[in-house]
């Protein structure tokens, strides 16, 4: 019995002592190794990398040949935001690659005259995710100098890495910055746990990351559809724990630039934002008829692009900063958390790196470069939305400032003439979905139906967009314009025929002819016999039109 106890102790002690040893890891390629790739006869463990005499000049006491300089690098041709100077792998990285690039036999060591033979006829590292091959453009960059100057240029790096991440003697990031080849306590020989990307953030310091939803969300995958974390070796259970790795792959990244897990930009987001991790199903929005067509572009978006992009495109990252986004609510005109930390253009047309107001984001594409044009032919044409919302315009919806019409009896409480609204109050996904304009079954990505074509039969649903703010009864009761009912119900005229919902530029229109968002649809409204095509405002709830509409000429005699 006593002997048995001793046996137990003897058996257990070495196991305990070895729990942190290379001997227990797959880097033990000797016959005693725990992995499947191991030598058939070699007993020594260290020998696959180290020798005590006649080592390769690479330190420390390296027993393998330097693989050479034939690697395809991760450099600023791969990623425009990579600020360091890329060089061929050197230092310890070259040593790691002497196995992990798959070109040199695992058993080819300097101190053995014959190549050490491996089980299963294995010579070089088999093709698997640990074999990085010689194309390193899909792996985290290595062998570049990391110093405060780089951090300054990058703007999103700590001045120097924090423990346990280490630079080598030449201040370079190497494989050993993140990996400890002798200990495998944290998967993949990481130097520390990477839960919540603890290792990544010892270098990477993204503005607002700590409060972003991707850092704080405890959402889990519901098991439906594609596993969004297939690219992670040992994924954690929730978004917060997977952190950077939700979207990025440190090695073998399919989207090479910035090591995105997916080559298709939108899939990096939609793999989770499809109702299976995140609550809202944006995938369903993006297959609707009218979308911000993230599927239609590939490789055009660049995080370093100007606030006013030159080439028309749209990706999730054009409107969302995934390192900063959070669920904070806001009131118009302020940007909410979902679009925090993104570029924009202010009401003066000045490019800004961080928006304050939501409309500034929309102006990136819908102002000076006007990637979309007005859907209605009007007396006054204007495709620059920023100009349409100018607060010195004769009339405008209150996007960039409080409106200038203090007589809007139709407004539904709590809205008043002092209220401001968001672009996304009208332009948003329809149905019960995320608040943003991802996709809608209605043209112009409108949140509700807004009939503009032909002679629509009036109903709440025909103009639900307008009636969401403007009380239908008030409109049809002619509270503001005494002929509203006659036009809308009697003549099946759309709101859109007389009103230009964004606003009318002060350089094109004036307070007399273009108050109350009047700017006629010229497909329906034409000039009268004397060439007039205008509305004349003669005071609150008073005015007349000089136009011809459906064959009927409107004259001053019809003033109200």
């Amino acid at each position, binding site marked *: 019995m006593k002997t048995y106890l001793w046996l137990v102790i003897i058996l257990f002690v070495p196991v305990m002592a070895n729990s*942190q*040893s*290379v*001997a227990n890891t797959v880097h033990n390629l*000797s016959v*005693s190794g725990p992995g499947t790739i191991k030598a058939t006869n070699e*007993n*020594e*463990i*260290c*020998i696959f990398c*180290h020798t*005590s*005499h*006649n*080592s*390769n*000049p690479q*330190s*420390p*006491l390296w027993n393998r040949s330097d693989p050479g300089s034939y690697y395809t690098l991760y450099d600023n041709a791969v990623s425009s935001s990579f600020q360091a100077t890329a060089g061929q792998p050197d230092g310890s990285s070259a040593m790691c690659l002497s196995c992990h690039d798959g070109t040199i036999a695992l058993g080819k060591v300097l*101190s053995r005259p014959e190549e050490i033979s491996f089980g299963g006829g294995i010579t070089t590292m088999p093709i698997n995710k640990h074999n990085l091959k010689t194309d390193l453009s899909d792996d985290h960059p290595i062998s570049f100098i990391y110093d405060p100057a780089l951090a300054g240029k990058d703007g999103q790096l700590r001045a120097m890495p924090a423990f346990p991440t280490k630079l*080598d*003697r030449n201040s370079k990031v190497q494989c050993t910055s993140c990996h400890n080849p*002798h200990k495998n306590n944290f998967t993949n020989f990481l130097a520390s746990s990477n839960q919540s990307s603890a290792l990544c953030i010892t270098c990477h310091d993204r503005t607002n990351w700590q409060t972003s939803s991707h850092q704080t969300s405890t959402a889990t995958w519901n098991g439906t559809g594609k596993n969004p974390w297939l690219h992670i070796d040992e994924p954690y259970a929730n978004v917060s724990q997977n952190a950077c790795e939700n979207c990025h792959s440190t090695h073998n990244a399919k989207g090479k630039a910035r090591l995105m897990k997916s080559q298709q930009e939108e899939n990096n987001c939609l793999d989770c934002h499809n109702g299976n991790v995140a609550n809202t199903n944006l995938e369903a929005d993006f297959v609707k008829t009218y979308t911000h067509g993230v599927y239609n572009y590939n490789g055009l978006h660049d995080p370093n692009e100007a606030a006013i992009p030159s080439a028309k495109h749209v990706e999730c990252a054009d409107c969302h900063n995934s390192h900063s986004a959070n669920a904070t609510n806001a009131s118009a005109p302020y940007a909410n958390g979902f679009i925090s930390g993104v570029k924009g253009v202010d009401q003066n047309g000045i490019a800004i790196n961080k928006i304050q107001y939501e409309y500034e984001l929309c102006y990136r594409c819908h102002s000076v470069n006007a990637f979309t044009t007005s859907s209605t032919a009007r007396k006054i044409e204007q495709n620059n939305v920023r100009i349409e919302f100018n607060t010195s315009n004769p009339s405008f919806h209150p996007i960039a400032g409080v409106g200038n019409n203090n007589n809007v009896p139709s407004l539904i409480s709590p809205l008043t003439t002092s209220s401001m609204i968001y672009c996304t109050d009208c332009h948003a996904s329809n149905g019960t979905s995320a608040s943003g304009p991802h996709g809608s079954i209605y043209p112009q990505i409108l949140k509700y139906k807004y009939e503009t074509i032909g002679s629509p039969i009036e109903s709440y649903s025909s103009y639900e967009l307008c009636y969401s703010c403007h009380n239908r009864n008030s409109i049809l009761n002619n509270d503001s314009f005494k002929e509203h009912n006659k036009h809308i119900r009697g003549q099946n005229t759309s709101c859109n025929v007389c009103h230009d919902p964004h606003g009318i530029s002060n350089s094109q229109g004036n307070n007399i002819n273009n108050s109350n968002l009047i700017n006629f649809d010229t497909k329906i409204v034409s000039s009268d016999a004397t060439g007039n095509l205008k509305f004349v405002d003669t005071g609150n709830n008073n005015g007349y039109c000089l136009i011809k509409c459906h064959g009927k000429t409107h004259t001053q005699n019809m003033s109200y």
Partner: protein
Amino acid sequence: MKKISFITLMLLAVTSMSFAQTITGTPHDMSAQAWNTMASNKLCGVCHTPHNAMAVSQAPLWSHTTSSTVYTMYTSAQSSTFNATPGAAPGGNSLLCLSCHDGTVALNNHIGNTLPLGSTLGVAYPTTTTLVGAALTNDHPISFTYDAALVTADGALRPITTAALGGTIATKMLFGGKMECASCHNPHNNQYTSFQRMTNNASQLCLTCHIK
């Protein structure tokens, strides 16, 4: 036939066992070398002499002429993770080993037969993996102090009180507190090949000091 082969086997086993424990028959047994023209003491005489030995520090009755070459040591220039500070040149018993293994002194340059390398009969060390040379930068560092301070600085070395070779690292593997060739090698016993002092199966010798 059976009997003969059995006896041969037994003989082989016995001799190999007995050889394993002594210098006889090991690569350090140079008694049969053509250049070894000593009349007596052919086995030990290459390194040792019973009388009138050279005055060499830490050298028991030393006979072989020591090297005057300048060595390049393994320092933190070789490895940024090397925390020790070796002397400018090898010391202690390491110098004795290097009197042959650096290749600058003739193998047969010893008391009674001082034949300098380059002289007609001076025998050079053959170019093999055991020729260490004067550049020690690709060899495990030697002649550095291994103490508690180094253990702390390195973080991956075992304390010198760790059990080793029937004693501790301090008592059995260090010489004047320093690591030398003899920390790992016993020139008189090749039981474990490469004159290692213990088996390096599963890299046990390396892992005696290194926590890896």
